[in-house]
């Protein structure tokens, strides 16, 4: 989901899902608790590359994929992770609504073998809704290693539904799952789920209500509808949930066998010993900072070489293109807009921005798949609580490091509206992937050595976190007043990520995404900016110079210059083009020949009067300023409010201006600049 924020289905009215059964097409829904490896099952079934994560409520959007069932036309829909159909969060409502309104032909419920009891409570609820359920007990390898064995046949008998044991990451059990799905679709298999028996008074009330219900569509279970009407009464709801869990426990007791550990010398499982370090009182936070710092360091050092190589190649290519233009006697303005504008900006994004993104993103994904992000959330939750924010805001903030638009969408996992809005409005303070390369490039210019530079980048990230917390605190005490609502965070078991797969897939995805954006966004923006920088107004001044001159007084107070502010404004479509725009703006006045690559960046900036303070304030402004246009559009669609969108643009900008002014004032006061 980090890498694919665009695949999203709005959930505002009935019949909204694009998978609505066409004649002859079978819809198979994939449901399950978060962290059951549901996405891995989805990938394995469809072959469609979809990111799999390791934290609760992660797969917020619906993903579709065709599955090959021996020639049958079938589509698999990956539903958001849900603990229960008695929905609380937005994800759970989406899952419930899909199951009850779309009437899929079959539902595969993915259950985690190591935590069967709780997973069965969802299975039992779904079986009330539809009989066509296949239970896929996943992560069976992991459970076996922990001495947990599941008796498949006994579970089938207890549930009255087909059961498959799978280990989706290595493909085990999936052929069997497909065979069962074929039998189910062809009607050769008719599951007869054994219903949960509720206390007599609930059963009586349900029967009474069922008899009085109007005619329902054939796919809808009358019992399910009656029970859902009854459970609006909290006392009945409690009885229902208790009965479901009692049944889940009795089934689990009958089918799960615990085999004494084969390594009796181990007092505590490896898992809890890892957590003893990673979440410990003294080491938890330092280890967390060191890990994040390490990620920045690897990104910074690793990006240097490919970056220089790409810059050299692309600059070489530019000179060939120029020769070709001259050979064709192309007019100067065409060469300017196409080569000096569009091509150069694109080359910039590819050479300076792509390598850090392509390194940082996979590393971050690995931490996420490992289950470490949930631990970060656990470690820092206290701070979020003190600021009146929701505990899951740390997760949505973490998503923001990938892409703020994705982070804003992820805020759906927060079920309280007030805290969701706080999280949406402050998400921008997490410097996204489009801003990291800018921070890294500027940090390498002012800090000597890669270690110091990574510390400086880490400091900028901490500034972003501080701004997130500070503004959450301020919002919780002013426009969004309120106390934090409850939240429960699941700490999933650590899982060894499929390292090679994650690295390759996310390297590929990232590269493709950046290249696509370089062509769609950066190149046209480059052409426009070149025109602004080179076409003169009647006064003999370029439009860009005019804007920069207008902004100069304001910029001076902020320790920046007019061109920097102009670049940030023109960079609204995408954060990664800010630096290329700035270079173009400067070079149109300084006429430098080589303007691609990190090495030349320092010379250009120095020639335009940059000091360490200018660079620092540019970094600060980059972390804190208004979100990019994609994020703003996402905020509009998520909040359905133009006012909040405007607030989401103005508030961070005000913070950014204040912070830059303060830095400059302090530097002046101390006589440092």
């Amino acid at each position, binding site marked *: 989901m980090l890498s694919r924020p665009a695949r999203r289905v709005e959930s505002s009215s009935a019949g909204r899902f694009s998978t609505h059964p066409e004649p002859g097409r079978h819809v198979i829904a994939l449901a399950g608790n978060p962290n059951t490896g549901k996405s891995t099952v989805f990938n394995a079934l469809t072959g469609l590359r979809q990111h799999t994560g390791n934290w609760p409520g992660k797969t917020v959007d619906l993903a579709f994929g065709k599955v090959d069932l021996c020639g049958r036309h079938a589509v698999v829909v990956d539903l958001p992770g849900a*603990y*229960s159909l*008695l929905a*609380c969060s937005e994800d759970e409502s989406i899952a419930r609504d899909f199951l009850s309104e779309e009437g899929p032909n079959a539902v595969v419920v993915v259950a985690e073998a*190591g*935590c*069967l*009891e*709780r997973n069965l*409570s969802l299975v039992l609820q779904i079986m009330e809704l539809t009989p066509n359920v296949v239970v896929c007990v996943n992560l069976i390898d992991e459970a076996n290693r922990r001495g947990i064995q599941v008796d498949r046949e006994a579970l089938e008998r207890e549930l009255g539904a087909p059961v498959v044991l799978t280990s989706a990451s290595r493909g085990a059990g999936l052929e069997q799952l497909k065979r069962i799905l074929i039998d189910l679709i062809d009607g050769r298999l008719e599951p007869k789920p054994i219903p949960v028996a509720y206390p007599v008074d609930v059963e009586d009330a349900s029967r009474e209500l069922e008899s009085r219900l109007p005619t329902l569509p054939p796919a809808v279970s009358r019992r399910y509808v009656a029970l859902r009407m009854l459970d609006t009464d*909290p006392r009945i*709801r*409690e009885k229902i*949930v*208790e009965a479901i*869990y009692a049944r889940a*426990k009795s089934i689990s007791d009958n089918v799960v066998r*615990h085999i004494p550990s084969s390594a009796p010398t181990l007092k505590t499982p490896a898992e*809890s010993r890892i*957590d*003893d370090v990673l*979440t*410990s*009182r*003294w080491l*938890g*936070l330092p280890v967390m900072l060191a890990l994040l710092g390490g990620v920045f360091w690897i990104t910074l050092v690793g990006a240097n070489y490919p970056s220089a190589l790409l810059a050299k190649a692309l600059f070489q290519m530019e000179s060939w293109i120029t020769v070709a233009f001259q050979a064709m006697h192309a007019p100067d303005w065409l060469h300017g807009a196409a080569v000096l504008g569009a091509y150069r900006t694109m080359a910039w994004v590819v050479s300076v921005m792509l390598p850090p993104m392509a390194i940082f993103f996979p590393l971050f994904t690995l931490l996420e798949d490992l289950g470490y992000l949930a631990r970060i959330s*656990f*470690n*820092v*939750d*206290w*701070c979020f*609580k003190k600021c009146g924010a929701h*505990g899951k805001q740390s997760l949505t903030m973490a998503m923001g490091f990938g892409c703020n638009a994705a982070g804003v969408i992820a805020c759906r996992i927060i*079920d*309280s509206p007030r805290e969701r809005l706080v999280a949406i409005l402050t998400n921008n303070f997490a410097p996204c992937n489009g801003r990291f390369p800018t921070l890294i490039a500027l940090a390498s210019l002012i800090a000597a050595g890669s270690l110091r530079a990574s510390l400086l980048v880490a400091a900028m990230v901490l500034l972003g976190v501080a701004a997130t917390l500070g503004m959450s605190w301020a919002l919780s005490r002013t426009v969004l007043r309120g106390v*934090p*609502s*409850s*939240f*429960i*965070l*699941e*700490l*999933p078991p650590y899982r060894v990520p499929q390292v090679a797969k994650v690295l390759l897939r996310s390297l590929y995805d990232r590269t493709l995404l950046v290249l696509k954006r370089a062509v769609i966004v950066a190149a046209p923006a480059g052409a426009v900016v070149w025109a602004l920088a080179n076409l003169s107004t009647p006064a003999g001044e370029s439009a860009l110079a005019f804007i920069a001159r207008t902004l100069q007084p304001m910029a001076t107070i902020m320790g920046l210059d007019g061109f920097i502010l102009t670049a940030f404004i023109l960079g609204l479509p995408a954060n990664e083009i800010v630096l290329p725009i700035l270079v173009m703006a400067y070079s149109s006045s300084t006429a430098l020949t080589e303007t691609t690559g990190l090495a030349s960046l320092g010379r250009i900036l120095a020639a335009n009067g940059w000091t360490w303070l200018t660079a620092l304030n540019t970094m600060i402004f980059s972390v804190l300023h208004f979100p990019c246009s994609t994020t703003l559009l996402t905020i509009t669609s998520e909040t359905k409010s133009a006012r909040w969108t405007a607030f989401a643009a103005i508030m961070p900008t005000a913070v950014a201006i204040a912070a830059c002014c303060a830095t400059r004032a302090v530097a002046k006061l101390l006589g440092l600049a």
Partner: protein
Amino acid sequence: MEGNLDREPETATLSDLRLGQTGVMRSVNATGMVRNRLLDLGFLPGTRVTAVRRAPLGDPTAYRVRGAVLALRHEDASRVIAEPIPDLHMEAKQC
């Protein structure tokens, strides 16, 4: 702990459990969404809940419930009435 008026003095909650200690749940002293969420995750009367670890800054605390590890903030944990099982030297082995 303090300021919780509707609680009898000797009624213990999840937040009173020491790390490693197991309690048997009695009831949830909350309404609405909090209550529903806790119920859905299996916090039901009679359930055994073990406090497993505490976050570096003292809150939240992670509890083992029905095979899963779930972190609750102090405010929420103190709404779950649970009777601690007296510590025996053998730690109750659950899942």
